[in-house]
Every structure is written in structure tokens, then in C-alpha cells.
């Protein structure tokens, strides 16, 4: 992502020279009352970084309501994201420029007009598409109308604009898949004096500098990455000169720099940021060239060590090369390389991983800049998700439990069924309930490996499916001897009078390899049959991550209707038998 700091022409060249043919499209529509075409190269570049080809459309300049309600070409079913830019100066010149002239009634009237404009725009967009909406809030004036005392009174300019932004946030929360982008925050990041280009505001109603456009683009892509399942799930950390200053093998426990005072405080703060991510559901792993005991000694015994053994889901601490070790980490956690972010202070290690494991995102911590480590991590934008659920909160624990399970496996010499039986698994398939919708949507967005059709859905999509009478949404929950894994699978079936189609069938990667997919599939089949439908159709759509399920339906007695390198179509007839649920589960509960 470094190229984004280059001049526009470099970015345009990079885009021009990239092969975008095979890439999936990212459809963005920008609705606006300002000139914002200059943002395009940044959005295009960030799309490429996310392995998508940008298809960008602009609504007419300052024709927002009409665009939303009557322009049928603009918002379409395949629109992924609608970005809304409404600048107050254009929307309400009175509130922006003439505030001190207005009496309270006039302010109130104007506020109501703006609110109804916002309401009309938002509800209009939602009535047309389910796309992710990223709504850019109003900027507070740098020099408010009443000057230094403006903040004092609720009737003055700052309070009024805050009220409008609060109204926007309220309205956004009424719908699914809507997100507020705080331009005041972005303006702070860029620096207010580098954010506006007053010349171009006057010449062409283009208010933003390139730096501002860059930062706005990056904020939007934090959301878009999450929307397309490209957000990262795991942080792999080096130890020496990363988690603490110095080298534990040489400096010893009392010699490394880690404390609440300088020079250890930058590392302490960095660890706080890491822990913050842990509690948001990011998995933490260690990859260090050290003697194992030395590293665990720090985690267990150093008084200022915030990251403890319990936070680490898996670790590769040895003298082998880090590319191999990171591969092993991905294997242990059963997640793809593209879900990993690797952080190291050593350029050699970073380059090695960039070469050998190009799918892994790396962050190099520059020498001598430990005071910046926390900011570098906080600003990377790889970990944003579109929601925060209980499963996220406990994810670290679950992956830790999973590691224990795997170690448990290693001690087991017998047949794998006995091992699976020893896990004492309890599987439960249920019809989805409302409170599970965020988790189900999240699963469709994030699951890549055991995913038959890889259809990505938003919460409002799942809600629709739950409400429609010709669709069934199933969740599958699992717990075992080591803990509760929560909802780890789901399926969406379309059942009409004559036909049934499995639209979505997926399993979270940490639940693969236990045979529970058979339970979910059997539940789906039984439901279809109990509705009196004879034939079930199922599909497989090949991606570069899900080839392990290519033969899933065939292995479960479905008949292959058609299969090629890209797709498969399978059916199960009324009289075809279904494979039995594995016998090693402690308990199986289904809806039937």
C-alpha cells in the first residue's frame, strides 16, 4: 500500500499496468453535491490492493434527491457501496455562511429542511439498493460563526452542526449496512491546514486536497475490505525489538526495555494496542527466533508484560526460517495466509516473507522508531469488521482452545474417530433467530475455505432470507470438551413447491475436519423432504480457496449433473439415501 503516498501519476501508472481482467468488480456509486472526481485514482488503487477492479459511477453534481429517486441507471442491484458526500456549504448556505443573521426560528426551520433532505436521501438509497452506504458527516467549521463563545450555547453553530451529524448517525442506525464516516476525524488526521484546497473549492467546487482524498479513501476501504471478507484475522508478532526493546537471549529479563517509563514505554503502549485488537477478536500468534523458554519466561514473569501466554493462540519459537514458521502458524489455526499480518522490526525477515509468502501482509517496524509502533499498528486499517459480536470477543479464547485441541491430537496415536469421540462434541442445528443475523452475515463475509458458493451477504440480506417464506436459514452450533465454539456453520436453502436449492452452505475454518458438515447437510435435506419437495439442487463455485469442498456433495451421495473446473451442479432425488451422521458425536440436535 506504499504507492498511495506517491504522486497521482505514479498511482495511475500502477493501475494502468496492472492486469485487472480476472478481478471481481467493486461497484461504487458516489452521490454528491461537490466535485470529487479527483478521488478516483485512490479508490482504484485501493481496490487493486484488495484484488478487485473498481467500477465507479458519479451521480450528478448536486442533484442528490433526483439521482436517488429517479436515476435508474445509477443505483443497481450489483452496487456494492454508495458513498454520500453532502457538504453543508452547498446543502445549506444559511447554516454554513449566514448563521449569525438567523434568529432561532429560522435556524430551526433550516435544520428541519436539512434533516428531511438527509432522510429523503438515505431512505431513497435504501429503497433502491442494499449496498453498503458510507455517509460522510458534516465538518465542524474551523472558525465557528460566534467565534470563541460558539461552543457555549445549544443554539449556536457548532451545536447545530453536531445535532445534524447526530441526526445522520441516528438515521443510519435505522437501516442495516450503513456507516458514518467522521470527516472531522479525517480532517484531524490530515491536519486541517492540509485538508482544504480553497483555490479549487472556488474554481471548481472541489474542496479537498489530495492528502484529504487519500485519507478519505483509506477510511472507506477499511469498510470495503471488511465487506468483501478481505479484512485480516490474525496478527503474527516477532518478539525481540518488537514486543520489547532489546534481545531477550542477550539482555535477559532485567535488561530488555519494557515498562511504563521511557525507554520501555513505547513497547508497553504497543502491547496495549495489540491487546486492544485481541479483545476485538483478532487472533495473536508469535513467530520468533529464540529459545522457547526465554520467550515464555518474559510472558510469564516480566512485571510489565501485558501480553500473556493466554493471549497467544499459537507460537513458532525456534531457529527455522520465518516463512516456514508462518506457514505452520496458518496451518495450526486453519486459516489462509491472506488472513495474516506479520509484524517484525527486521527488514530481512519482512523481505523474506514478502518473497516467499506474498499473500501475507507485512508491517515493518522501523529501527529507532519504537515511539511510532503503536500508531503504525493502530492506523494500518487491516482489522476493521462491519460488526462486533460475542463470538468476536471470545475468539482468542476459542483459537487458544483449538490449539490445545490440536496438541491433544498430537498425543493421540489411535484412529481418528476415537480422537473425535474423545472431544465429546455436541452439535446443534437450528433455524436462525434474529439475534444471530449479524453472526451469520459475518460468516458469509469471512468464510473462504469450506464455502460451497462463496456468496457474501450483509445483515439486511440475511434478514430478508429469514423473513421470506420460501427460504430457510440454518445455523449450526458446536461445543466440545474444551469450550463452546458458538455458531460455526450456516446454510441458506430456497424451498419452493417444486424445487429446493442450497444457496449457501459453509463451515467456519476452525470447525473443519470433524464431520459436522454432514449433520448440517442432513438437516437441510430432512427439511426439504419434510416440505414435500423431491429434488434438491446444490452448487459448487470454485475459488482459489475452496477446492477442498469440490467433491463435498458428491461424497454425500448427491449425483453430479455437471462439473467442470469452475463449477459443479449436484442433485439428490427423493429416494436417494443420505449418509448417516457420524457416530462419534456426544449429542446431535437438529430442527426435525
Amino acid at each position, binding site marked *: 500500500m506504499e504507492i498511495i503516498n506517491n*504522486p*497521482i*501519476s505514479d498511482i495511475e501508472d500502477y493501475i494502468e499496468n496492472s492486469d485487472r481482467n480476472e478481478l471481481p468488480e467493486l461497484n461504487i456509486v458516489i452521490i454528491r453535491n461537490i466535485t470529487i*472526481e*479527483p478521488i478516483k485514482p485512490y479508490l482504484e488503487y485501493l481496490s487493486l490492493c484488495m484484488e478487485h477492479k473498481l467500477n465507479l459511477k458519479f451521480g450528478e453534481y448536486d442533484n442528490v434527491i433526483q439521482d436517488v429517486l429517479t436515476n435508474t441507471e445509477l443505483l443497481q442491484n450489483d452496487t456494492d457501496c454508495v458513498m454520500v458526500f453532502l457538504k453543508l456549504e452547498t446543502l445549506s448556505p444559511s447554516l454554513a455562511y449566514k448563521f449569525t443573521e438567523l434568529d432561532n426560528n429560522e435556524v430551526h426551520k433550516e435544520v428541519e429542511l436539512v434533516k428531511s433532505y438527509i432522510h429523503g436521501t438515505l431512505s431513497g438509497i435504501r429503497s433502491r439498493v442494499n449496498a453498503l452506504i458510507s455517509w460522510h458527516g458534516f465538518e465542524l467549521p474551523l472558525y465557528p460563526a460566534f467565534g470563541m463563545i460558539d461552543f457555549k450555547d445549544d443554539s449556536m453553530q457548532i451545536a447545530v452542526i453536531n445535532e445534524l451529524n447526530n441526526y445522520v448517525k441516528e438515521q443510519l442506525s435505522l437501516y442495516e449496512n450503513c456507516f458514518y464516516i467522521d470527516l472531522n476525524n479525517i480532517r484531524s488526521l490530515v491536519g486541517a491546514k492540509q485538508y482544504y484546497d*480553497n*483555490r*479549487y473549492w*472556488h*474554481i*471548481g467546487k*472541489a474542496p479537498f486536497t*489530495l492528502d484529504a482524498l487519500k485519507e478519505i479513501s483509506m477510511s472507506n476501504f477499511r469498510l470495503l475490505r471488511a465487506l468483501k471478507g478481505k479484512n485480516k484475522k490474525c496478527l503474527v508478532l516477532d518478539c525481540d525489538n518488537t514486543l520489547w526493546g532489546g534481545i531477550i537471549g542477550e539482555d535477559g529479563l532485567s535488561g530488555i526495555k519494557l515498562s511504563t517509563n521511557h525507554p520501555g514505554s513505547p513497547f508497553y503502549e504497543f502491547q496495549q494496542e495489540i491487546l486492544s485488537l485481541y479483545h476485538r477478536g483478532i487472533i495473536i500468534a508469535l513467530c520468533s527466533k529464540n529459545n522457547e523458554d526465554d520467550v515464555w519466561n518474559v510472558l510469564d514473569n516480566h512485571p510489565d508484560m501485558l501480553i500473556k501466554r493466554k493471549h497467544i493462540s499459537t507460537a513458532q519459537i525456534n531457529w527455522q526460517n520465518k516463512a516456514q514458521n508462518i506457514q505452520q502458524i496458518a496451518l495450526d489455526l486453519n486459516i489462509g495466509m491472506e488472513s495474516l499480518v506479520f509484524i517484525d522490526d527486521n527488514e530481512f525477515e519482512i523481505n523474506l516473507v514478502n518473497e516467499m509468502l506474498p499473500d501475507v501482509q507485512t508491517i515493518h517496524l522501523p529501527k529507532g522508531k519504537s515511539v511510532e509502533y503503536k500508531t503504525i499498528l493502530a492506523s494500518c486499517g487491516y482489522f476493521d469488521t462491519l460488526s462486533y459480536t460475542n463470538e468476536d470477543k471470545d475468539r482468542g479464547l476459542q483459537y487458544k482452545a483449538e490449539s490445545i485441541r490440536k496438541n491433544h491430537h498430537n498425543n493421540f496415536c489411535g484412529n481418528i474417530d476415537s480422537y473425535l469421540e474423545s472431544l465429546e462434541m455436541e452439535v446443534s442445528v437450528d433455524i436462525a433467530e434474529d439475534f444471530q443475523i449479524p453472526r451469520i452475515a459475518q460468516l458469509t463475509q469471512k468464510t473462504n475455505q469450506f464455502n460451497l458458493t462463496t456468496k457474501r451477504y450483509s445483515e439486511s440480506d440475511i434478514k430478508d432470507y429469514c423473513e421470506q417464506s420460501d427460504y430457510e436459514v440454518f445455523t449450526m452450533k458446536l461445543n466440545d470438551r474444551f469450550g463452546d465454539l458458538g455458531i460455526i456453520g450456516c446454510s441458506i436453502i430456497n424451498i419452493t413447491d417444486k424445487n429446493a436449492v442450497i444457496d449457501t452452505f459453509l463451515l467456519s475454518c476452525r470447525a473443519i475436519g470433524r464431520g459436522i458438515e454432514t449433520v448440517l447437510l442432513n438437516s437441510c435435506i430432512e427439511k426439504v423432504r419434510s416440505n414435500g419437495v423431491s429434488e434438491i439442487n446444490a452448487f459448487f463455485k470454485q475459488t482459489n480457496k475452496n477446492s477442498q469442498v469440490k467433491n463435498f456433495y458428491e461424497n454425500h451421495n448427491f449425483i453430479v449433473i455437471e462439473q467442470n473446473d469452475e463449477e459443479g451442479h449436484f442433485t439428490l432425488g427423493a429416494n436417494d439415501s443420505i449418509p448417516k451422521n457420524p457416530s462419534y458425536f456426544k449429542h446431535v440436535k437438529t430442527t426435525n
Partner: protein
Amino acid sequence: MIEEKLKKIMSKILKISVEDITVDSSPDNIETWDSLQHMNLVLGLEQNFNVSFDDEEIIQLLSYEIILATLEEKL
């Protein structure tokens, strides 16, 4: 040399070859020189030559000749 550097920058931003840039080069005869690229050009010149144009200058920078003259004045 200001001329060489200016031609290089214009070539890169307007996606034309250096040889095609003449005294008369302007938005009238260069297709890629639309208002958006004009902005990129202005910003590119400011960054590369470490100068600053005001709004009235920006809208006048409409040919190679004028840009060169303006730059020479400022540098």
C-alpha cells in the same frame, strides 16, 4: 533546466510524449488535458518546482508557453 523538467512533468501527467509538447500545447489540442488533469498538472508542478499558484493563476495556466513563463517568473 526548467523547460526539460516542465515537459517531463506534462508528459507524465497528460500521458503524451515529450516530443509532442510544443509552445502551443493546450487543452484545445491535447485530448487528455481536461479539467481533472489540469488540476493534477497544477498540483504536480507545485510539488516538483516547489512553487505555489493562486486561484487566478491556476485558471490562466492554459498553454505550455504560459506555464513556462509563469514558472520562470516564480523561480
